[in-house]
């Protein structure tokens, strides 16, 4: 009897020992799941408006302070970060997965450093990373203070 040594879906979240792209893959999966779960709760939450203004208002108050002060905005900030990361990394993947901004086939030379994970792909990561920081900063300031820069 041989056994199947499958790593399984749990290995998606084990990016250790591999490169940046593997980390980004794990984060992309994680943020995708977070956003999916959030979306379901969001639909349930907003549907409560059908039960009238009193229920809605009390729900809004509870969502601001679900488990203590500032917990609601913290959850919202986490969702915002997940959304921004997922969107911008998705943009990068759309570009590179269509073979754009990737090198042409080359002759591998020792020590083998895969060029598809470096070069313009790295440039994209840094470029979109700046965008992510900027958008997240504006969003989080808005969530906590209600002010847009």
């Amino acid at each position, binding site marked *: 009897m041989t056994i199947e040594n*499958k790593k399984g879906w749990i290995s998606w979240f084990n990016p250790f020992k591999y490169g940046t792209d593997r980390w980004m893959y794990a984060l992309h999966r994680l943020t995708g799941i977070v956003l999916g779960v959030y979306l379901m709760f969001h639909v349930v939450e907003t549907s409560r408006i059908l039960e009238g203004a009193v229920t809605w208002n009390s729900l809004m108050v509870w969502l601001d302070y679900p488990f203590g002060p500032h917990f609601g905005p913290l959850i919202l900030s986490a969702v915002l970060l997940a959304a921004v990361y997922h969107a911008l990394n998705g943009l990068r993947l759309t570009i590179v997965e269509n073979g754009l901004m990737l090198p042409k*086939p080359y002759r591998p030379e020792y020590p083998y450093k895969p060029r*598809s994970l470096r070069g313009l792909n790295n440039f994209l990561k840094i470029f979109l990373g700046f965008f992510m920081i900027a958008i997240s900063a504006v969003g989080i300031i808005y969530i906590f203070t209600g002010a847009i820069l």
Partner: protein
Amino acid sequence: MQEIALKGFGEVVKTVTFRVKRYSPENADMPRYMEYKVPVQRGMTILDGILYIKEHLDHSLSARYSCRMGICGSCGMIINGKEKLACQTQILELGKDLIKVDPMGNYEIVKDLVPDLSKLFRNHQKVKPYVLREEESPTSEYLQTPEQREEYAMFTDCILCGMCLSACPTNAADELYLGPQALAQGFRYISDNRDLGFEERLNVLDSKHGVWRCHFSGACSEVCPKGVDPALGIQLLRQLLTENIFVKHKQKGTTRGPERKSASGVS
């Protein structure tokens, strides 16, 4: 235990512990880890360490190897959490006193550190890894310029060690996924100017478990011992398929992508 130094190496520098995953299909035991103390000499590789264990400590340990110089691709295993060729990994370079050795993931285990690579070869075969031509008996050579050869040359370095399939997170969850090795080889033959099998290979490559299943985690390229960069091959293959989106699928030959559905809904 008396430490026995291997001939041909230098002084014993230190003793490291090998934590090796053991599994024997003959005994229905669950896989378990066993620890062995190995005296390390300068220049010793993980494979030398495993052979030391086999020779002096535990004869029942199994591992597959052949060339001992990174050419045959037989000794791929997970060393301290990352896929590596045992014959190319120096013990001292790892800089650890505890070395965890696992068999490659996503394959069935034959015994201990020996994975069953049939899945790799099966997938490789599916993409028809040879030059396809219309004529049965060629009358002259098929010509190719050095520039044309450069378009696929890097992918010919693949030694079929199968480490990319072990590292690939998509392959970890999708049993039918073709895998980085087969897809990169698909690109290698499609981009060969002598080959005319693009449409014939579409059935397999452009399928539910084919090229679109890759999510570009880059793990395959990170672990490739020959620097083949299969992730690049897959993305370039996708580009090629997108550019040829209107090429009609001929559904020729017997090889078909698993559960592939055509536009009409008929598989």
